[in-house]
């Protein structure tokens, strides 16, 4: 154990002391903060823009204004509903509701001229127009065509098309209303018809930890599937992240000719175990740091947003459910060992980074296969394809985790866990042989075929 610890410690500190590690560690939170900030600033920093509508009446201008008001009302209603769902008293949520409803970015102003040529100085910013947000140029103008068949949209900025799309929706709505009126129907006929549609709620057939049978399905019912999907993805992500570490770490030792010195001080399995643990710890450190960032973020939002704690609770219950988490942990550990030893053994056959890079593509393809399986299983965990795929050793660690919330037969769970143990042991045995050949005897990637044939009792071809 001491030797494993010493190898682990050296490798772990070696990785952690590298500046690239800290860069990776900081990258995700930084990316999230910058991304979120960018989104917020993009929304709030967007300037108020003026537009005008040139038409004989105010039919189209009112329709566009009506559409903007409908959107504000909808946003306020959604904010109110969310506050209600999270048990936030409406009085406390007033500001959020007001924020959602307010914040108009496009404001209609009276047209300073009637033709495009006359309006051009205001559209190009040569002249300013007074409005509720002060003096600004005209961002866009709508001009009704002479035959009244088109409401032409003119703007110097063709990339911001929000106003144009809003106008299109407004025109469609106006057309519907006219059509309904012409048929003698109430203008709100379609809305009323939609509101009258019967609801299709989901009910819990069997009693679960989430509650009694017969009750409506809630987030507590869906949390285990979401948690298991997150765990499967986490395992995949961890394996994906370690490839580089395992390949490069072994290449460093091989190119530095250090194995002979090491192998007179530690046994090969101890060396492998120490290195695997170090890479596991490095990726865990990274992911735990990111998780910590997420937890702190959640805690902050839970303290700021009443009701957030209630939302998180079903996920905590799923994570602490032994029926879900124990098989998941076994799958996680065995999956890591299986893939980790495989990649480390391949790394031991490479002399240079270039050689290792040629291995990365097939490794990535190998890793994409479980990703597809995870996707299919998440969409339809009861699918026969998932049942069959879960018996394929390279997929089992991921798919067993995903199947656990759906109560697969106990014999299947035990059999698949047993199979994983056997397959992982075989892979570790084979990988140790390959590692010894690479690390001790200097075998290269070209000799892998011969090694496999020898292991299978076949004679490699001469020459």
């Amino acid at each position, binding site marked *: 154990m001491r030797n494993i610890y010493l190898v682990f410690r050296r490798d772990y500190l070696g990785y952690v002391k590298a500046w690239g590690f800290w860069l990776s560690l900081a990258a995700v939170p930084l990316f999230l903060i910058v991304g979120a900030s960018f989104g917020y600033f993009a929304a709030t920093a967007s300037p108020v823009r003026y537009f005008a509508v040139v038409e004989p009446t105010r039919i189209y201008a009112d329709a566009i204004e009506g559409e903007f008001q409908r959107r504000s009302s909808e946003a306020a209603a959604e904010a109110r509903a969310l506050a209600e769902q999270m048990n936030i008293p409406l009085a406390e949520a007033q500001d959020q509701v007001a924020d959602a409803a307010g914040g108009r970015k496009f404001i209609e102003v009276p047209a300073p001229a009637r033709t495009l040529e006359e309006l051009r100085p205001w559209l190009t910013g040569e002249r300013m127009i007074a409005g509720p947000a002060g003096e600004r140029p005209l961002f866009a103008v709508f001009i009704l065509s002479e035959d009244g068949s088109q409401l032409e949209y003119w703007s110097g900025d063709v990339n911001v098309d929000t106003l144009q799309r809003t106008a299109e929706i407004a025109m469609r709505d106006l057309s519907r209303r006219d059509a309904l009126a012409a048929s003698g129907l109430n203008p709100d006929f379609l809305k009323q018809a939609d509101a009258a549609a019967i609801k299709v709620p989901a009910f819990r057939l069997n009693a679960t930890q989430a509650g009694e049978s017969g009750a409506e399905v809630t987030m507590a019912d869906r949390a285990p599937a979401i948690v298991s999907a997150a765990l499967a993805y986490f395992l995949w992500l961890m394996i994906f992240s370690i490839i580089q570490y395992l390949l490069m770490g072994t290449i460093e*030792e091989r190119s*530095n*000719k250090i194995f002979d*010195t090491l192998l*007179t001080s530690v046994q090969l399995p101890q060396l492998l175990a120490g290195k695997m643990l170090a890479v596991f710890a490095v990726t865990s450190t990274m992911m735990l740091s990111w998780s910590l960032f997420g937890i702190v973020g959640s805690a902050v939002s839970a303290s700021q947003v009443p009701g957030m704690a209630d939302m998180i609770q079903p996920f905590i219950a799923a994570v602490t459910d032994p029926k879900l988490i124990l098989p998941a942990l076994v799958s996680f550990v065995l999956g890591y060992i299986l893939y980790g030893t495989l990649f480390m053994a391949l790394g031991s056959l490479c002399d240079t980074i270039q050689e290792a890079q040629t291995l990365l593509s097939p490794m990535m393809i190998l890793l994409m296969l479980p990703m597809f399986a995870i996707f299919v299983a998440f969409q339809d965990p009861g699918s026969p394809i998932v049942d069959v795929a879960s018996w394929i050793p390279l997929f089992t660690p991921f798919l067993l985790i995903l199947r656990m919330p759906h109560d697969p037969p106990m014999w299947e769970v035990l059999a698949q866990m047993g199979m994983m143990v056997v397959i992982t042991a075989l892979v570790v045995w084979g990988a140790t042989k390959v590692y010894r050949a690479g690390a*001790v*005897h200097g075998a290269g990637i070209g000799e892998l075929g011969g090694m496999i044939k020898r292991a299978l009792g076949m004679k490699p071809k001469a020459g």
Partner: protein
Amino acid sequence: MSDAPLILSHATKRFGAFTAVSDLSFEVPAGQIVGFLGPNGAGKSTSLRMSLGVMAPDEGEVRLFGARPELKSLKRVGFLPEERGLYKKMNARDTIIYFGRLKGLSASDARARADELLEATGLGKFRTTRISKLSKGMAQKVQILSTLAHRPDFLILDEPFSGLDPVNQQTLEDLIKAEHARGATILFSTHVMEHAERLCDRIVMLARGRKVLDGTLEEAYATLGSGARITLEPGFDLAAALTPKGFGVHRAADKGPGEAWRVDLAPGQGPQDALRAVLEAGAPIIGFQPEEARLRDVFVSLVGEAEAAALDTPAVPTEGEVV
């Protein structure tokens, strides 16, 4: 039962169809410095790797401190491999501490020992310098210090002088002598005979994977006895002329113009007898020098000039090519 730290009995190692070491038997007596000599590709490194259990012999047996090489006995061994290698991003001090701890030192002992060794060898001010920033000679020194950190009972050094400048070669010689004085048993391989002559109590000579000599320096020299080095103009077969007269004659390594021959003297014969015989044979003599046997001559006499020429070529790894 022998108290020799290392005993090889009929050890054989093959890589595919190539036999790297064949039926090799020798032992390293406790407290002695043993030179393991031979040209590149003779099987020295393979033999040392078998001695350490890094690879197992296909036939025969290796006993390290009386048992098959295992971690427990290896803790008493300090090994310097032929192909030097350290973690380039670690600093000198941490490197010595790491390898010292792997050999069983406590963290505090390893730290103290690293400081002591670095100071003693003039590397104290480079203790926190990364290996990648050290000169090749300094990095080699650090590796040697890592080998000595745990005060091993038995040192196995594979081509320890290779790549060192004359000053550092002398420093290493002094270190080996100091370790020997401390009581360590030392086995080192080299293809530079002069180092072996200065340091060794015993030598084991290897050629093409086979042992050709195993004994003390005196025993090695005795295989040749005294003789005379005679340099002739090319084209004269001195062996054909002098062998019928009872002299042992064979080609020696050329050192300058002409062809060098060595005439072995039997008991009772003197160098002047050899010179007289050469002149009587009408040989075109350029030079004459009475000489005592050197290890190189012993080696030439045992394995031939072609093998001896390989002693002077730079070291190249061999095992990896034949796996």
